[in-house]
């Protein structure tokens, strides 16, 4: 591994991996608890439309993807609020339209020779230094946003309706969150690719949620897990000469199933333990009901 770090592209890859992990842990946590995984997927895929348009009009694909994905995330946000019942359908439609737009415009572009595969699977090994700086800035923005509005974000994520009633601008927060997600999604796509973006946004928070007791700790643990997955994936892909983006996700996926298996075993063990000594059972809430001390009179 250390000799690999002598190579500049490898150092960039590690830096990009760590920065992406941080943002995935923090925003991914909010994506998971707010149940906006589908919107995030929609944004990621529709972003391809922006790339197509940018190529056609001769602009930078990264810029095109960024602007387009922000615009599309706002539209999806409005759709998810206006027609709650059919929000997923609307998002699905835009998901498909965005991609179709991208395909048509890249095809129409004369002399088109951008590597579509790198968009689908990412290219962590060829992240330029300028991208690292951009990622650093984005990380800072995301961290400051979450730091300053932590209690509002927590409230909104747990109980949106109550938060609205006590006067939190839940709509505004929601749209800012969507905006940050689209910026990050475009960035993550460069590292692990379009297809794997959602895996990195959801797997670490999903595992972290089970072992933490607050949203903040969930973000920290998810970021750490994400870093482990990314670095381990990089190392494995370097050793065995595999596609790095896909290998990172394979590592994360392996951890995902491992955590499920651990849960299943632990759950079973707990059940048998409970059966053996029901007298000091403090896990089953039904039994506990009667023992609740009742208040102050």
């Amino acid at each position: 591994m250390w000799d690999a770090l002598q190579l500049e592209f490898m150092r960039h890859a590690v830096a990009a991996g760590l920065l992406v992990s941080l943002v995935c842990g923090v925003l991914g946590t909010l994506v998971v608890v707010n149940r906006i995984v589908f919107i995030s997927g929609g944004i990621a895929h529709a972003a391809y439309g922006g790339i197509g348009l940018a190529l056609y009009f001769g602009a930078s694909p990264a810029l095109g993807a960024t602007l387009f994905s922000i615009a599309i995330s706002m539209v999806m946000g409005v759709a998810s609020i206006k027609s709650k019942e059919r929000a997923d359908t609307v998002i699905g439609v835009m998901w498909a339209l965005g991609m179709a737009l991208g395909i048509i415009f890249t095809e129409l572009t004369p002399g088109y020779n951008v590597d579509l595969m790198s968009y689908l699977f990412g290219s962590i090994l060829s992240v330029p230094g300028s991208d690292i700086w951009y990622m650093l800035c984005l990380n800072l923005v995301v961290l400051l946003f979450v730091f300053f509005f932590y209690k509002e974000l927590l409230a909104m994520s747990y109980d949106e309706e109550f938060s609205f009633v006590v006067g939190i601008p839940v709509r505004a927060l929601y749209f800012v969150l969507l905006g940050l997600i689209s910026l990050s999604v475009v960035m993550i796509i460069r590292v692990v690719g379009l297809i794997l973006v959602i895996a990195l946004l959801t797997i670490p928070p999903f595992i972290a949620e089970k072992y933490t007791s607050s949203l903040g700790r969930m973000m920290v643990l998810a970021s750490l897990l994400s870093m482990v997955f990314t670095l381990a994936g990089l190392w494995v892909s370097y050793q065995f000469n595999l596609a790095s983006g896909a290998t990172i996700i394979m590592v994360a996926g392996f951890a995902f199933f491992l955590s499920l298996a651990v849960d299943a075993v632990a759950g079973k063990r707990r059940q048998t333990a409970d059966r053996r000594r029901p007298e000091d059972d403090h896990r089953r809430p039904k039994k506990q009901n009667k023992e609740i001390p009742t208040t102050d009179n």
Partner: protein
Amino acid sequence: MEQALSQNADPLTSVPDAIEVEEVCFSYERTEVLKNVSFRLKQGEFLGIIGPNGGGKTTLVRLLLGLLNPDRGKIRILGEAPNAASRRVGYVPQSMELSRSFPISVMDVAFMGRLARARMGKRYTREDEEKVRQVLEKVGMWEHRRKLIGKLSGGQKQRVFIARALATDPEILFLDEPTASVDPEFQVNLYDILEELNKQVTIIVITHDIGVVSSYMKSIACVNKHFIFHEGSQITQEMIDMAYQCPVDLIAHGMPHRVLPTHKEE
């Protein structure tokens, strides 16, 4: 609380009604839920709302909270538009279908009640902490404060949500079937808390428990698309007919003594 008290204490300033509803209509898609609802509720009232399922009770409360906007008509809460007044009201929603695995402690849920007063982008203050301790002790959940809310029983959860609403220091408190999942012991306890609170706070409760209605509440309304308001806590024949198409019988058989006005024992 303090504000409500001082407003009530001063006879010279005109006190706005707690709730003022004029000719309000509301429908979901094409289903008419509420039709021409009008009523006024003075501050300091304790109103029980009864009615059949799907009769529009929860919709009415959601309109009063500004969560929904009426198709027609006017709503004033403490003399303000519902959204403007929302920081002055507390709310205990109906059964909470929130994620069980969400990593949030009992204490952090109660802290949410302080958001109405807290500044955006700032941490909670010492005063907020004190208030949260007070309300959690009141509902008997202080010792569980570090537990994850998802690990609690339905009744315990309900207590926390009641604490959260109390933590807002409301001038009006809305409760949507607050006793639906709590143990009977706490039910009585809750209404004692509410009765005490009612000295300063206007309270509106949606409930199915007609017994509780008669003994604790100062007035009763029945919602079934239309709205019948009754000052004084008797349930009228009209209400029962409207609320329950035929079960006048059922009530008479099941708990006849409760339909009559009861006298409160200390």
